Structures are given as structure tokens and as C-alpha cells.
């Protein structure tokens, strides 16, 4: 099947929007569980930014799709296999090192992506990217400082952040992989080439990891299947509970 540009754009926005939504939800689970007050505030602020970005992206996705689905419909009424987020962001919080490693990997990608996406031929995407970029740079400042602090901190903090990177690294091929529908969007100058982003991402991430006294995690097998891990279903069960139990409920 040849997908037309609108459908491709819908899929693209869905992937970006879902990734922000699921990461935002994961971070919101850290509310009152941060290692200290300032960090608790930081993590919930990050959650707010990601959910805000998801709201804008999914609203636009709904408009592009043209079936009258709102951002809330897309968030609360889709089953797990229709979510397009990166597997990385659905991984459980496990411990603070995992939260930071995951955040850092996402932040570096978002900064690179939004820098290029703000020059998109699609004015709406370009406008959003300009807004999101400022937030993502701020996030990256925070997460990369923590990677350094944990990596160069105590033996225990070093062990934990290394463990987190080692464990989460297997999700990077799926996150960096180019999707077939992106080709047309790249040709039209709507979105940047994910292969270039993947190269830049790897260089930047490895630089900070090594500067933090950590080892580059070993590349594991490359997963090409698109199914989610078991964790997303559990997350959605909680996130969608209210709308599933009381359809159409409003504040």
C-alpha cells in the first residue's frame, strides 16, 4: 500500500506525540518519589512539559487524520497496539539512575530533532519545534548534569547509572530506526532524515557517557519488531482507567 503524505504525517506526529505522552506519564509517577525536594519538582516539571508537547502534537495528529479525533480521544481511547511511542520511554522507573539515563537519551534526541524540525516546510511543525526546542535544551542541561554527577559520584551511583545505560541500550535501535513512511516526508522537506539524527545522537550520547567516567554499553541484538514491551499495557491500564470506566467523563 502506498501511504499518502497526510497519512505519513499522521503517523509521524503520532510517534512524536505518543513518545512525549508516555514519557510524561512515567515521569508523573515520580511525583513525591524524587530523591530530594528539588529533584521531585524537577521531574514533575519535566512531566508537565512532555505532556504539554504531547497535547499539541496529538491535537495536530488528529487534525491531519481528519476523523475528528481529539488529543484526548487519541490518548485515552486507543488500545496498546495502536500506540507508536518508543519502547524506551515505556520502561519502568526502576530507580533514579534509570529515570535519568532514559531522560538523557530522549533529551539529546529531542534537541537534535527539534533543531532541524524548526526549519521544516510545514509551518505548524516548524512552529511547534521552535517552542519545544527551548524546553528540551533546558531538560538536557538537567539530565546531562545528573549523568555526570552519578557517573563521577560514589561507587554506588556509578554502578547504578552504568547498569541503567546497559539495560536501556537495547531499546535504542528501535528508537533510532527510520520508518518507511518517513521517506516521503523527508523528500518533501517536512521532516529531517532520521539516519543523520541517529549518527549525531550516538556521537553526543557517547561523549557525555565517557566524560562521565562510564563505558559505552555493548550493542545487543537489533530488534526490528514493532511490538511494545509488557510495560506499556500496565501503564495504559492506569492512565486510561477513568475514561474506560466512565466513557466521556469530563471535569
Amino acid at each position, binding site marked *: 500500500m502506498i501511504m499518502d503524505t497526510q497519512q505519513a504525517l499522521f503517523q509521524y506526529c503520532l510517534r512524536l506525540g505518543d513518545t512525549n505522552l508516555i514519557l510524561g506519564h512515567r515521569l508523573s509517577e515520580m511525583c513525591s518519589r524524587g530523591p530530594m525536594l*528539588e529533584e521531585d519538582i*524537577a521531574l514533575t*516539571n519535566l512531566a508537565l512539559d*512532555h505532556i504539554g508537547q504531547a*497535547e499539541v502534537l496529538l491535537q495536530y495528529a488528529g487534525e491531519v487524520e481528519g476523523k475528528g479525533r481529539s488529543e484526548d480521544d487519541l490518548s485515552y481511547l486507543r488500545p496498546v497496539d495502536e500506540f507508536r511511542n518508543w519502547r524506551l520511554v515505556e520502561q519502568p522507573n526502576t530507580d533514579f539512575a534509570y529515570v535519568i539515563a532514559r531522560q538523557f537519551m530522549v533529551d539529546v534526541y529531542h534537541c537534535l530533532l527539534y533543531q532541524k524540525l524548526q526549519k521544516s516546510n510545514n509551518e*505548524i511543525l516548524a512552529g511547534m519545534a521552535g*517552542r519545544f526546542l*527551548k524546553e528540551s535544551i533546558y531538560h538536557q*542541561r538537567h539530565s546531562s548534569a545528573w549523568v555526570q554527577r552519578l557517573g563521577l559520584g560514589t561507587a554506588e551511583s556509578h554502578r547504578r547509572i552504568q547498569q541503567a545505560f546497559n539495560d536501556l541500550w537495547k531499546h535504542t535501535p528501535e528508537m533510532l530506526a527510520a520508518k518507511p513512511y518517513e521517506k516521503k516526508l523527508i523528500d518533501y522537506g517536512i521532516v529531517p532524515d532520521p539516519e543523520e539524527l541517529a549518527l549525531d545522537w550516538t556521537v553526543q550520547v557517547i561523549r557525555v557517557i565517557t566524560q562521565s567516567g562510564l563505558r559505552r554499553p555493548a550493542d545487543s541484538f537489533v530488534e526490528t519488531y514493532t511490538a511494545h514491551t509488557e510495560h506499556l499495557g500496565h501503564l495504559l491500564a492506569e492512565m486510561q482507567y477513568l475514561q474506560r470506566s466512565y466513557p466521556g467523563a469530563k471535569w
Partner: protein
Amino acid sequence: MQPDFIGIEELVWERLSLIPDPEVPVISILDLGVVRNVRYDGNNLEIVITPTYTGCPAMSLFVAEIRAAMHDQGFDQVEIKIVYSPAWTTDWLSSVAKEKLRQYGIAPPVKDVDPENPFAPPPVIPCPRCNSEDTTLVSQFGATACKSLYKCNTCKEPFEYFKHF
């Protein structure tokens, strides 16, 4: 454009300048720079606003307060349009607004040395109370999305900093 419509638009701007920012009430939403345009065609009133932060919870409050204020002025057909491009920046804060922030105890935004580089060192933030440049970042995130927390090493007072964006 008919001249009396321009007069009406001016009235709208004036009324908007009286709506305080819900989080930082010393400045108005006009001082903040979120209102980008006002258009009146004799029938419909259109107000264009740009959100400060994508997830800013105050945004829906802005919309509600603008709507209420315009309703009080007798405008029934008010369309509030939210645009994302160009992205809101703290450069749109007026110099009057920055001074008001400082007097309120919030350090106004200071330009980043290298805004596109996430690894660049942060700029020096002078204390809004004693102007000392010997200040320390306590927390990058604060009570609202637009502020971070600092303390002054000279007068020992903690203070909030309105992030540069």
C-alpha cells in the same frame, strides 16, 4: 479598516493590559507578551495569543480571563486563537515588566551565552534584592514552569529567577 474599529481595538488592548498574569500578578498578560494580535471587523473580535510553555497550566486561565474581560466589555463573539509560531520568548517581556519583576523579588531573565548549546555554562544571575552577582543555583526548576530557584551568597536571601527562553 474603518477608523472607529481601530479605536475599538485600542480599547481592547487597554483592557487586556489590566489582566494580571495568574502566576506573577505584578505584571499583566500584555507585559508578558503573550498577546500577539487583536482584530475587530465590526462583528467578531479575534485575539491571537502565544503560549509561554507548551504545558503551562496558566494557559487555559489566560483564555478564560480574556474571554471574561471581553464579555464585560460587551463583546459576545470572541475568538481566541492560539498560535505556536513564532515561539514565545522572554525577549517579548517589556523592560518595564522586567523592572516590575525585579522589584517584586523575581530576578528577570538574563540572556544565555550560547542558547542553542545545552552544555554551555549558565549566565550570572544578579540578586534582585542587593544586586550581588555572587549567587548560586539551588534548583533548575521552581514552583512554576517559568522559574528556577537561586540563593544570594551576599545577602543570604533565596530568590526566584524568571528563566530566559
